[in-house]
């Protein structure tokens, strides 16, 4: 007889994936991978994008079937044909992209797809009650009656966890759960996870953030190029060691920022007020200056006006007050093309929606902006020879991994798409670069590469505004850090000396006294 969880579900004492092989046309995604997790344990799965983490987990969740190997649950071999089979066996998965219906309430989202205890009549009150029990036990503060669209990202994630627990998950797979959270929210999540472990859940924690892996897991398995490099007790590992195992070479975790004397003011934002999507002002009198040879980091919890600022600077959102000077030229109301011509480049926040086109090839994506200028075209005709030559150069010099130049980019990894966008933007030799979330969801190798390139641009004298929710990134790169809260800049501090605690407080709205 198996022990029960507090929810009354049987525990998953052990899960073993043995010798898992999964082939896709031309790719060996999993090559005899072994992985196991036990009740009462957080087992981290570490690896770069494309290392085979997702493929492995999809086989566990019944989305793919392994070509070879076995999945053994509590000592019994199992064959999941669909996620429904996996859920019935007590496996839950928190996806990176939440699977919630925004217009429904929390309780409705949790009840979605489940049988009501009252037959044809809804039992949302019972669901809500059960949600509150779960919320209390695991510190998952959330209002069952709140519509999901009103919730912050961190709260939505809690709803996902509650959903999985409600469905009786004894083993939970968390796919990059911290990518969207503030440092404080990460702490909250870890409290929840620890409680779940104490209760006897088994947790698989997928991440490429090393300090989080070190903080939460008991064991860590590193995947590289589809193979498992090894399983280690977390206590015996260091960041540097893990990074080396994951990437297969020494990785620079601390950048060498050369001293650069900032030059003239390149991007001047004065008293900028901008309306948000719902008609209310999203930015209130924001002022900020970025000088040549300087990286100014803009920190803040997502949804505090960063997105609107980036769009206003790109010329895609109209400005109701204030002005923007680009190299001394007033561009407050000019369209995107004019700003580009004036030397501005931008890496948009949403790579696949704003920065690149899924169905277009690598070359086509590289010429999105300059297709109508030489060398890519002559008198309104595209010059395919020049396009192929330039694209090949960019692919090589930015180390974009792609089978051919004609490959649609939807088959590339996030890191490679981001490198492609970076290649396109930097090849325009910008004087001002606005980089929004440049490494979000990007693997450590590409992340390091992008950071090095940004620092290189700084040395070349580009003025860089780095908008990011990743505090580590902001602190590693910025000369100065501005913090946004509710559409205002609540403080600007010196980059190298800023502490995470100070920044965290400012991000929560506590005004910095020294600013």
């Amino acid at each position: 007889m198996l022990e029960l969880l507090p929810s009354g579900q049987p525990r998953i004492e052990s899960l073993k994936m043995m010798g898992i092989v999964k082939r896709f046309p031309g790719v060996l995604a999993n090559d005899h991978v072994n992985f196991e997790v036990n009740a009462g344990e957080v087992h981290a799965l570490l690896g770069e994008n494309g290392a085979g983490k997702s493929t492995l987990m999809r086989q566990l969740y019944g989305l793919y079937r392994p070509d070879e190997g076995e999945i053994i649950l509590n000592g019994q071999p199992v064959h999941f044909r669909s996620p429904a089979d996996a859920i019935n066996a007590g496996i839950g998965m928190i996806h990176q992209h939440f699977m919630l219906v925004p217009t429904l309430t929390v309780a409705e989202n949790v009840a979605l797809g489940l049988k009501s205890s009252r037959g044809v009549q809804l039992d949302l009150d019972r669901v809500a009650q059960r949600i509150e029990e779960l919320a209390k036990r695991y510190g998952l503060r959330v209002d069952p009656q709140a519509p999901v669209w009103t919730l912050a990202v961190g709260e939505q994630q809690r709803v996902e966890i509650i959903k999985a627990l409600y469905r009786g998950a004894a083993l939970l797979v968390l796919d990059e759960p911290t990518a969207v959270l503030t440092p404080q929210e990460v702490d909250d999540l870890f409290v929840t996870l620890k409680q779940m472990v104490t209760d006897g859940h088994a947790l698989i924690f997928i991440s490429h953030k090393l300090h989080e892996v070190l903080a939460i897991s008991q064991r860590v398995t590193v995947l590289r190029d589809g193979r498992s490099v090894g399983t280690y007790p977390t206590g015996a590992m260091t960041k540097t060691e893990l990074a080396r195992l994951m990437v297969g070479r020494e990785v620079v975790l601390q950048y060498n920022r050369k001293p650069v004397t900032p030059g003239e003011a390149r991007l001047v934002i004065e008293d900028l007020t901008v309306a948000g999507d719902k008609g209310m002002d999203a930015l209130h009198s924001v002022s900020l200056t970025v000088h040549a040879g300087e990286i100014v980091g803009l920190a803040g919890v997502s949804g505090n006006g960063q997105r609107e600022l980036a769009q206003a600077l790109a010329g895609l959102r109209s400005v109701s007050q204030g002005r923007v000077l680009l190299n001394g030229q007033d561009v407050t109301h000019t369209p995107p093309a004019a700003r580009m011509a004036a030397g501005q480049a931008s890496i948009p926040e949403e790579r696949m929606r704003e920065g690149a086109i899924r169905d277009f090839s690598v070359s086509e994506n590289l010429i999105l902006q300059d297709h109508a200028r030489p060398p890519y075209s002559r008198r309104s005709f595209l010059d395919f020879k020049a396009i192929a030559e330039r694209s090949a150069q960019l692919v090589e010099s930015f180390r974009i991994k792609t089978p051919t130049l004609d490959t649609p980019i939807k088959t590339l990894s996030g890191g490679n798409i981001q490198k492609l966008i970076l290649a396109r933007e930097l090849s325009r030799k910008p004087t001002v670069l606005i980089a929004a979330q440049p490494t979000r969801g990007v693997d450590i190798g590409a992340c390091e590469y992008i950071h090095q390139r940004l620092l290189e641009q700084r040395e070349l004298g580009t003025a860089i505004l780095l908008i990011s929710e990743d505090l580590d990134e902001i602190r590693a790169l910025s000369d100065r850090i501005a913090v946004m809260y509710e559409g205002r800049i609540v403080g600007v501090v010196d980059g190298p000396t800023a502490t995470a605690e100070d920044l965290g407080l400012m991000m929560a709205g506590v005004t910095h006294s020294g600013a």
Partner: protein
Amino acid sequence: MAEVAKTVQAPAPSSGGAAMVWRVVSGLIVPTLAVVTALVLGGVVIWLTSGGFGAPGEATQKTLAAYQGLLDGAFFNERSFSETIVATTPYILAGLSVAFAFKGGLFNIGAEGQYFLGAVSAAWVGYALPLPPVLHLLVALAAGFIGGGLWGAIPGYLKARTGAHEVIVTIMLNYIAFLLVDWLVNSPLRAPRSSAPKTPDILDTAMLPRFFPAPDRLHSGILVALFAVVIIWWFLNKTTLGFEIRTVGANRDAARYAGMNVTRIFVMAMGIAGGLAGLAGGVEVLGLQHNLPAFFSAGYGFDSIAIALLARTNPLGIVPAAFLFGALRNGADLMELRSGASKQIISVVQAMMLLFVAAPAIIRALYRLRAPKDAVKEAPLSRGWGG
């Protein structure tokens, strides 16, 4: 280390001829099977409606006679092939119109209305504007293009300025176009001394030459249509403007971010799409009718949506799809005559073709085909209706 080693060193710009051929062939498998399956099921419908259960032998004979009639009517009877090409011509141009708009991310449901406007513009230039030979024909064709183009640009402009959805606007403009042209033909442009309401006959100088002596009606409009296909394919793939239209069609936000003027592209894409449908109407008047009667409606504009879908919005695919529709349309009469099966059966067959092309999973399940990796690409007209 691993990363650098895996970086492609200046990859070959093209993926090779064999791969290209395979891509084309594999793209044709589902549409071809869709057509075959629809024809077989159409046969089943004929068999059932001919009393298949009561008198199976007789019903089978009728079914065979129906398809024999369809084939003879479309290809093998005297002048049948010419008539099939005559019907194919407007289908190509109107289908191209819908496919082109779709490349810009727009649904042109207004091809029928644009067709009317193109027809009336070409007819007016044809009879009222005496010009030297050749020039007259070119001006009349241009008038057809411009008439339809302006009509098509209206929804493009309204979408760009006010966000009005082009599906709604083009549908409404269709009704306005029918009534506008009806009024024109009934009163200001009506031929004097003619009993039926229609425009005067166009001048000989504006007529598209015919290939054979009467009564064969095969006219050189087919060359205009094929020329348009090549031009549109070339325009979309080789010019910067075509690139912009495809970019806007694939991802509006990214296009905006890249500095493209999306509103201008909307107007232009709908204008060119409307022009193509207008050209269809113009060619029909200049090549076939030689005047514009009231009740000119031929439904080419509406069938063109189906043709664009069957061709998966690929300009080159429009030609076989339009030919298929032309043949079915042309063969339907003889099919009915020979077998007594209603010619509405053809609509059933066409609907099934579309169903199978729009839902390729059915075909793949039926023939145990493997799903392609990018299944999203398969049903281009099924996405984005909400936008």
